[in-house]
């Protein structure tokens, strides 16, 4: 098992090294310093800025410095936009808000989608199955942004005005936090999480249903039924474990989309997460923060890829032998 883990890690290291190199090269296609400084900046100011961030050094030197700062988790370079803060001080506080959306969203959407898919698959071909799948396709055909706009309107405006239930805030407001973790989460994060769950429901349900339907034709299901297992036991105990591999793949594949989604939700609900921070700093030509956040996000994906492979091996022992 451990040798398998080590192999996966070793396999992914070169991928990550290249990603960092590509990102760094791309960000340097247009001179970041002249984008940042105003048009009439003097040559001396330019040189000063370049020297401060080490941009005057050869690319490979910069590359290894970047790798060193990632490996040692030393993000002490100055942010270009918020000049009093270091890059670490900008990025650090933004990690928790992002996780507060992505982790519950991933959990809820996967669980609900699997249950809905099991219901649809158990009633395959009947009206309930066709109805659920129809709703799924309709949901897939509407833009994420429309779900967010309508979700915010009905969840935060309409609900408060028509029924007087002030459950969700229109947008995140750091000054109005009550200090109670759970209450704050419900007020500021539950609505975005719910929107995220609704959006991913269509894709996930259809996918899981296909996986489960494929499994229902397998021999072991017939055996389980023959020995007298109840339908629910067959579905939830026998079938689910065998459907786990595609489900894990699916969950991991949706991770990037989750980041996309949480980026949108963060921007829309003014939640100071990683995505919103990246966007603000990019729009203000903050080269230092842009480069570091992209590198960190890529690292998160690589780690999630490795985690996927390890989970495979745990669920299906055949994987680690191949």
């Amino acid at each position, binding site marked *: 098992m451990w040798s398998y883990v080590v192999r996966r890690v070793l396999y992914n290291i070169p991928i990550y090294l290249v990603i960092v190199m590509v990102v760094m090269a791309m960000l340097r296609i247009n001179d970041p310093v002249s984008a940042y400084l105003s048009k009439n900046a003097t040559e001396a100011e330019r040189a000063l800025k370049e020297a401060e961030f080490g941009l005057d050094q050869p690319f490979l030197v910069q590359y290894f410095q970047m790798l060193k700062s990632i490996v040692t988790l030393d993000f002490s370079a100055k942010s270009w936009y918020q000049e009093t803060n270091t890059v670490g001080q900008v990025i650090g506080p933004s990690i928790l808000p992002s996780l507060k959306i992505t982790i519950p969203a991933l959990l809820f959407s996967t669980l609900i989608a699997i249950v809905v898919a099991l219901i649809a698959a158990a009633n395959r071909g009947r009206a309930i199955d066709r109805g659920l799948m129809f709703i799924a396709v309709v949901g897939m055909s509407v833009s994420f*942004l429309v779900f967010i706009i309508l979700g915010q309107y009905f969840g935060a405006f309409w609900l408060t005005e028509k029924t007087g239930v002030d459950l969700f805030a229109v947008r995140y407001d750091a000054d109005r936090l009550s200090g109670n973790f759970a209450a704050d989460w419900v007020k500021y994060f539950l609505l975005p999480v719910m929107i995220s769950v609704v959006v991913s429901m269509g894709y996930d349900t259809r996918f899981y249903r296909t996986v489960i339907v494929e499994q229902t034709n397998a021999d072991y299901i017939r055996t389980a039924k023959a020995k007298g297992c109840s339908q629910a036991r067959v579905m939830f105990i026998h079938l689910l474990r065998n459907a786990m591999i595609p489900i894990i793949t699916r969950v991991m594949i949706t991770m990037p989309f989750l980041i996309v989604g949480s980026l949108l939700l963060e*921007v829309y609900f003014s939640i100071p997460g990683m995505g919103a921070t990246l966007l603000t700093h990019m729009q203000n030509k903050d080269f230092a923060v842009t480069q570091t956040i992209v590198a960190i996000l890529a690292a998160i994906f690589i780690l999630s890829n490795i985690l996927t492979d390890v989970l495979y091996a745990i669920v299906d022992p055949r994987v680690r032998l191949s």
Partner: protein
Amino acid sequence: MAQQPRGTKPAAPEAQPTDLLSARAGAHRPTGFFDKPGVRKFVRNRTGMASLIVISLFVIVAVAIAIPPHLISLDQVQSRVGPGTQPGFGLASDPYARIEVAEFFLGEVEKALDSSEPEAALAELRFAERSVKMMPVEEIEAALDSGYEAFDLLDEALIEFEDAEIEVEELEDDGAEAAELAEARAAVAATRAEFAAALLALETEVDKLFPSPTGWDAFVYKLRLVAGTDRQGRSIAFRAIYSIKTATQIGMVTALFSIIVGAILGGAAGFFGGIVDHAVVWLYSTLSSIPYIIWLIVIAFVFRESTWHVPLLGKPVSQTLIPVYIAFSVTLWVGTCRVIRGEAMKIKSMDYIQSAVSIGASPFRILIKHVLPNVMYLLFINFSLAFVAAIKGEVILSYLGLGVPGGQPSWGVMIRDSKEDVVLGVFWELGAATLMMFILVYAFNILSDALQDAFDPKHVG
């Protein structure tokens, strides 16, 4: 689950030929495109065919907008047709909306008259099919005055009508006698009729200044207002239709690119294996380790300040759709590549490929003649998946301000612009853009399902 490619499928057990003629017919089975079992199954699928027709209609509209006698020109979608934030459909005949329209036209004429060169300003005053009637400035002034007189009369009628209505409500609340109530209701009816007459009179006055278009123009003008106007008084309906072109443009370019690149790289990786396979797998795992939104932000960061002019378009690259194409293309080919690679690996070990190799067919011939036809349906499915992904991605990018640049409308730009209106309970722009997008994306979703049903032997419905 070994897949049986269509090329080697044993002929289905046919009914025993009863005579020589049908036996011969069985021996010479037609082999045209429409006789393939998958194609036959697809053509029989009614929802699939319907979605294909819908998609074709959208593409035809997009082409009609894009090629020279433009169905709708960019100027047309950017010019005002009336007052801002007007409702569409039946709600346009709401009296308050009609008053607003009349007020808007009178106000615009007044503004033009107040300007330093009234004649030039009047000549330019034009809202799509509706423009100021050509007459001397004095006459226009007179017409405007009588318009405002009619407006004052309308105001009085409106106040009376509203007062009458309030009285009825008060009486109802007080539980007044039936006779009194009936009298008050009669007063409401009378004042309503007066109000309607005054409104009609006002509109007649406005019509003298701004003649309502007639014939075909009237139809086009109505069509412009069918879904209301946006904040700047531009036609929502026309913007939503014009966006078909934007969406098709983005979808076509990125989907074509991604299936071509995906097919070539995936096919090569799966078929040749070895170092090619390693290189391709490594390339796509690298690219897909960064979600496309991050790619896009990085690409936008690069192109934002770029002064590089695109040779044929004569515009700086940040004003074109090129950053959007690149961002989608970089990530969307990966899905196709994965699928094709897997399929090519499976096909490679099939008997008929082995026999083709043994009779000395070149790898290129095998790829084109034997592998490609068997993965064709996958390319179609992935084309529609990539198309949908690009259209839906465009909305997200436009919202973030990284998508369609300049004044070109797109569904994403419209949905973004509608954000503030929704808070006020105005859904016209959001609704129009969402509906258009929904029809196209839904059709593509149904189409890919139908393709899968028809061609994928493993597919479970």
